[in-house]
């Protein structure tokens, strides 16, 4: 009983390498470096790394990032949301219905859509915490329900499944540019003027840079990643997210409002899906009933590549953002490298499998399980 103040001689000091290994971002960092090295070597001259190319894969990565942040925090809180893809389609369609079919002002259409989608997120969460059912099943049901409505509503109102005219309806609106539009236009014009980036040489855009600014989509992605990262690692609520996913019952005994945390994370996931949807309809100018298909899985894959455990309680927003970056760079990079695009899916499957195996190993390192 007297020797308890001594350290246990059987616990070896952890090496620096091992300590680095248990950081959730590790897989994402290694993957990012590997992917960039690969494409710089094999597609360096294909235009992938000039202004247009960078903007191309940045935009695709930013799309993944927006939904990955929501999926990441939710997964750390111990739940899944399979309805993200349907939510994207549904939100886009709601904006079109309110803004075009019903001709509401665009700001009202957007805010109403946010309210409806976040309410669906809350409903997902409420059903999960009330019934104790796996969120996998509950949100699978939501996936079909929302997709059904996304097809039914425009069919009934307009006799078609794609509603256009959104860009025209958003003309002069004060909220729409927060999701459409670009920023730093003056800076990019200047870059074009000094010859740092290419400018159009012909047509009515002659003299304008090929990239006219940073799309709001990318601004949203970076903003959400920063907010998500601070929320998770630097706040009381972040500690509750880890606790709710790590062991809900132990967290409850310690006074953590687990149910509230989970419901709020479902709402945040729905918010992210809606941001994605609004950016998308502003860019395309139309809403389609098939938008967002399979996005829920892409979000989950990005999060898992980023080092989060499927079982909850462990993960990183920065990791998820890197997962999304890898995703976007590879998807677009294969195109630049001239590789058959169907191989992207093969790559995705392989990297997902590797990430899950790596994460399981890391989990053993952390918990000391054998």
């Amino acid at each position, binding site marked *: *009983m007297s020797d*308890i*103040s*001594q*350290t*246990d001689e059987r*616990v070896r*000091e*952890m090496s620096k390498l091992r300590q680095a290994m*248990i950081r959730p971002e590790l897989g994402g960092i290694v993957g990012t470096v590997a992917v960039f090295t690969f494409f710089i070597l094999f597609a360096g001259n294909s235009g992938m790394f000039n202004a247009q190319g960078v903007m191309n894969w940045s935009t695709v990565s930013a799309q993944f990032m927006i939904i990955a942040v929501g999926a990441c925090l939710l997964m750390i809180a111990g739940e899944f949301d399979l309805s993200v893809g349907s939510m994207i389609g549904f939100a886009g369609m709601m904006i079109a219905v309110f803004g075009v079919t019903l001709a509401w002002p665009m700001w009202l259409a957007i805010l109403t859509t946010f309210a409806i989608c976040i309410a669906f997120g809350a409903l997902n969460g409420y059903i999960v915490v009330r019934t104790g059912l796996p969120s996998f099943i509950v949100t699978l049901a939501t996936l079909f329900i929302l997709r059904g409505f996304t097809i039914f509503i425009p069919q009934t109102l307009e006799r078609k499944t794609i509603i256009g005219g959104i860009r025209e309806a958003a003309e002069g609106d004060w909220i729409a540019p927060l999701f459409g539009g670009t920023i730093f236009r003056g800076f990019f014009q200047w870059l074009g003027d000094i010859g740092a980036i290419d400018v159009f040489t012909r047509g009515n855009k002659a003299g304008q840079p090929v990239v006219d600014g940073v799309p709001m989509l990318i601004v949203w992605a970076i903003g959400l990643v920063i907010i998500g990262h*601070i929320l998770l690692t*630097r*706040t*009381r609520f*972040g*500690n509750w997210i*880890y*606790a709710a996913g*790590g*062991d809900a*019952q*132990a*967290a409850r*005994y*310690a*006074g*953590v409002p687990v149910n509230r945390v989970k419901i709020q994370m479902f709402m945040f996931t729905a918010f992210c899906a809606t941001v994605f949807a609004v950016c998308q309809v502003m860019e395309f100018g139309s809403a389609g009933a098939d938008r967002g298909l399979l996005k829920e899985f892409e979000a989950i894959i990005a999060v898992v590549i980023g080092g989060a*455990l499927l079982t909850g*309680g*462990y993960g990183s927003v920065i990791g998820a953002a890197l997962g999304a970056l890898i995703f976007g760079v590879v998807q677009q990079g294969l195109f630049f490298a001239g590789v058959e695009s169907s191989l992207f899916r093969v790559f995705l499957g392989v990297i997902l499998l590797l990430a899950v195996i790596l994460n399981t190993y890391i*989990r053993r390192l*952390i*918990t*000391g*399980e054998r």
Partner: protein
Amino acid sequence: MQPIIQMNDIQKHFGSVIALAGVTIDFYPGECHCLLGDNGAGKSTFIKTMSGVHKPTSGDILFEGQPMHFADPRDAIAAGIATVYQDLAMIPLMSVSRNFFMGNEPIRTKLGLRLFDHDHANQTTMNEMRKMGINLRGPDQAVGTLSGGERQTVAIARAVHFGAKVLILDEPTSALGVRQTANVLATVDKVRAQGISVVFITHNVRHAMAVGDRFTVLNRGKTYGTANKGEITPEELQDMMAGGEELATLEGSLGGTV
């Protein structure tokens, strides 16, 4: 000295099942009161009544002389009654420091944002762990790397740090090895010395004898009364837990090893 908690004639019925049939026990500050009983004796129901999980069907709970009615466990925690559950005390994937402050996160306001004060949390955790005799590699070490006994100790230190006056330990040693058990019992001893009332639930007589000041045996929802240290032998306690003679015959055939 005034008891910190008096449980008077507590009855608890679950439908037609009588889990507690009138239990009366007092708990004093600075003592370790062992609650013994075999499986199904009503130990768990009793401590859940004390910690606000169950409401008694009849009987009073006096806390520092005042009648108390706990609506839920948070009320009991706020009053200073902390419970450490055997396997649900800690979250393995989280760091010791994050676990220690779970539900009581320290806040520091910076640039108008209310942030988790990690510096304060880490420092406090290291200090408290050192006091309890656990040397951590660092405050960010995951709880999963600690042994079962160390986890119990962290949970006890946490409860004490956040002002527990009564510490209920639900079978803290039942899943532990010999050495880890010794560590937990040493921790109980330290906590008692700080004037905290420790309620130690166990079905292991030897563990109870090692730290207990008073012993109460529960059997089939009733108590056999409370004995002070030195007034009762381990054999007597063991027999009371098993309800008397059955164990005596068992003991004969097993050569007295139970």
